[in-house]
Structures are given as C-alpha cells and as structure tokens.
C-alpha cells in the first residue's frame, strides 16, 4: 500500500497502518540506532521510544509524504541522546554477541574482509558522538547534508564541519589500524 495512505490512516488512529510502517522501517531504524549507540540493547530502546513517539504524535507530522524523514529525525535525536549518556565502548558481551552472528563464513578471505569491516566500524565508534552520528547518516543512510542538518537541528555548515573533522580523524586512525591489519592479513594469506 502507498506509504502516504498508510501515514494518513495511522494519523486517523489506524494501528494496522502503523504496524505496516513499522515493518517497513524497523530493521533500518534498528541498524542506524545500533551504529549510533554502539549497543544492541540501547538501540532496541531507541527504536521502541521512536515508534511509540511516532504513533502517539503522528498528527504532528505536517506532510504525509515526509514520514521517513520525520521518523528518522526522532530516531536520530533519541539515539543521539542515548549515545551521549552511555560510554562509547562497546560492552564485551555485545562484542562477542556480534562476533557470533558473523560466523559461518566459508572462506578465509571473507572472514578477513569482515574483520576489516569490524575494525573500521570500531574506528567509527571511537569518534565523538556528534561526528559519529553525522558519519552514519552520511555514509550509511546516504542522507544529504541538508537533511542531516534538519534531523540534528543544526546548520548545514556545522554538518559539513563535523564530516570534515570526522574524515580526518578516521583517516588518521585507519592509517595506523590498517597497517597492522594488512600486515596480519598478508602473513595469513602467504
């Protein structure tokens, strides 16, 4: 069904329409929240808060076609607050949990690619939450700078500045980290 129709029906109190919208965006929302908070349990809390707010406040959404951007704005701000409250280190048990979900890869090459990806994500996670949020929205969500600015309630220039600083930090961290990973990789593949 057309998303605008679902949004309109949800605004009239139709719970089934809300359920369908939730099904459409639940995984994307959860993954984005996870990347920002760095915690599975926190990201579930963020998604819960977000969709409860979506249902209870959907009448405040002015344009039915703007549902995704509006929902994402709530999600990002909720995740941002959660990210600021919590320590940025990923708890050990969740690292293990994440690692377990990635087993079952058949080739050594795939395992190493995933290891590199995990290392990169860890690097992103070590960024301050303001820069991390911008990086996730820009690279993962592929949001334009103007949309990120609206979501975070700041100027486009601020987003660009945070992106620039984040890139520089990432480059610096990745230069160091990749040296060690690539050396290890080359040794294993020899």
């Amino acid at each position: 069904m057309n998303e605008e129709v679902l949004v309109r029906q949800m605004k009239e109190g139709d719970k089934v329409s809300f359920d369908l919208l939730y099904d459409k965006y639940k995984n994307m929302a959860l993954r984005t929240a996870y990347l920002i908070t760095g915690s599975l349990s926190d990201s579930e809390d963020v998604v819960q808060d977000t969709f409860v707010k979506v249902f209870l406040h959907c009448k405040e959404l002015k344009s039915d076609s703007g549902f995704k951007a509006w929902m994402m704005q709530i999600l990002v701000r909720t995740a941002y607050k959660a990210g600021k409250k919590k320590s940025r280190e990923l708890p050990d048990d969740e690292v293990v949990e994440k690692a377990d979900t990635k087993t079952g890869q058949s080739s050594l090459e795939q395992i190493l690619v995933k290891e590199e990806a995990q290392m990169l994500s860890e690097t992103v996670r070590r960024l301050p939450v303001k820069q991390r949020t911008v990086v996730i929205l820009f690279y993962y969500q592929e949001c334009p700078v103007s949309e990120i600015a609206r979501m975070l309630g700041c100027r486009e220039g601020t987003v660009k500045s945070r992106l620039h600083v984040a890139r520089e930090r990432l480059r610096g961290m990745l230069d160091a980290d990749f040296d060690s990973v690539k050396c290890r990789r080359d040794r294993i593949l020899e």
Partner: protein
Amino acid sequence: MQMKYDFEQTIKSALETECQDITASRSLKERIDDEILNSQKEAGTMKHLSVKKLVIGVAAACLLVGGGAFASGHAVSFSNGISVWDNYKSYDDMDKAQEKLGYPVDCVETFSNGYQFSEMSVDDVDAWDEDGNKAYTYKDMSIYYEKAGEPDMYLTIHKPVEAIEREKTPDATRGCGDVTLYYDEYTYKFVPLSYELTEEDKANDERDDYNISYGSDEVEIKQSKGVTWKKDGIFYNLAGFDLNLSADEMFDMAEQIIGQE
C-alpha cells in the same frame, strides 16, 4: 601511500557489514505495542478533548472531590468516552437527559447574573486505577452555561460510585439549608504528552491546589474556580476556568440551583 582503497566506499561498506545481521525481534514490537497501550490508558482520551471537555472529564472530577482523592483508593484518573458524547441543545430536553442519567437533578436554565443554559450532555466517564486499568464507568451530566463576554461555566452532576473525601481545605464555605457549599480555586497546567516537567512543575505538582494535566496540544495555564456540594446522594460541581466571579457570587449561583435563594 597508506590509503590505497576507496576511503568513502570503504566506510560505507564497513558500516553496512557491521549491522547487516541485526534484525528487529518480535519482543521489540511487543514492547512497543505495550507502551503505546499504556500511554493511551494513562492519557485516556484527553488528547482529543477540547479544554471544555477537559473541564468536564478531568478537572471537574478532581474539583468535585477536592483533588481527586478517593478514600477507597481505587480510581485515580478519569476520562470521557467521546463515543457517547451526545449533546442536548435545548433546555426542553432536560427530561430526556435526566432519563438517560437515571435520576432527577437540581438545575436552572438562567442565573440572575446573566449566565444562561447553552447545551448539556450525559456521558459515560471511565475511572482508571493506579495500574492503568479501568476501575469502573459512571454516568455524568454536564450542563454548559454561557454569558456574552465571559468565560463559559459548567455544572457537572453525578452519583459517586466510591466513598470520597476532600484532600484540599476549601478556600471558602457557606451553609445552604442542610447543604454545605465548598468553594475551591485551582491552577491547572495543561501540557502535551511529550512535555517534560521542570523542577518548578514538580514542586507545584506537590501542592493540593495545583494540577498538571497531560493531553493538550500546547501548554496552557488556567485558573479554575468551583463550588461543590452534595445533596440527596448526588454531587454537584459548578465551575469554570478564568472566571470573573467571586466566591460569594458563585455561592449565590449554587443556591439558585438548589432552590434556596
């Protein structure tokens, strides 16, 4: 040269890889549904009520019992059922309204100070307990009075289901035959569901003459004045927000309803 790979694409791919196995669980949806249900119970149907109906549905109930304290400890909040909102536009329909209510009541069409009957309704009011469960439902008659250039007034009438007692010391009292009239003033702060209480709000909320009521579209602060009394087992509450009336003037109006003036 250290960065031989596509830096931008590498970041994107890494982030996608990092979370691609994460999926929303069934229990997450159940938690969301539970919280929505609880929020709706807490808010009742207030969100969709006008300030006028809020007076009838919430403030009136609280004013009526002096802060909403019930000796038996069951009901803690109230909300009107919109589906049964059925207005009578003519005072000639009083017999029909009383038949729907189930018992005769004292009332007048016009007060000596110029307030006149506007409309009335008989509604089912839901009473909720502390756990968000519906405790019981009772019928409540609401009569609106209006006067040009003045705020509306409301007379609400119902038979109490529970034993009730006042928490707040009345601001004034007057005897009227065998009936005691109680005059109370309250401050109501109506706030949206998303509103977060300030420290000042929390301090005010401890006062017995201050109420914070969730469910309005915007923050509104209103002063209520009301006269309450009990006669023949029926509770009456004549009240309104931001009224330009003194306690004595409101007592006089109550006496006109009772028929003792």
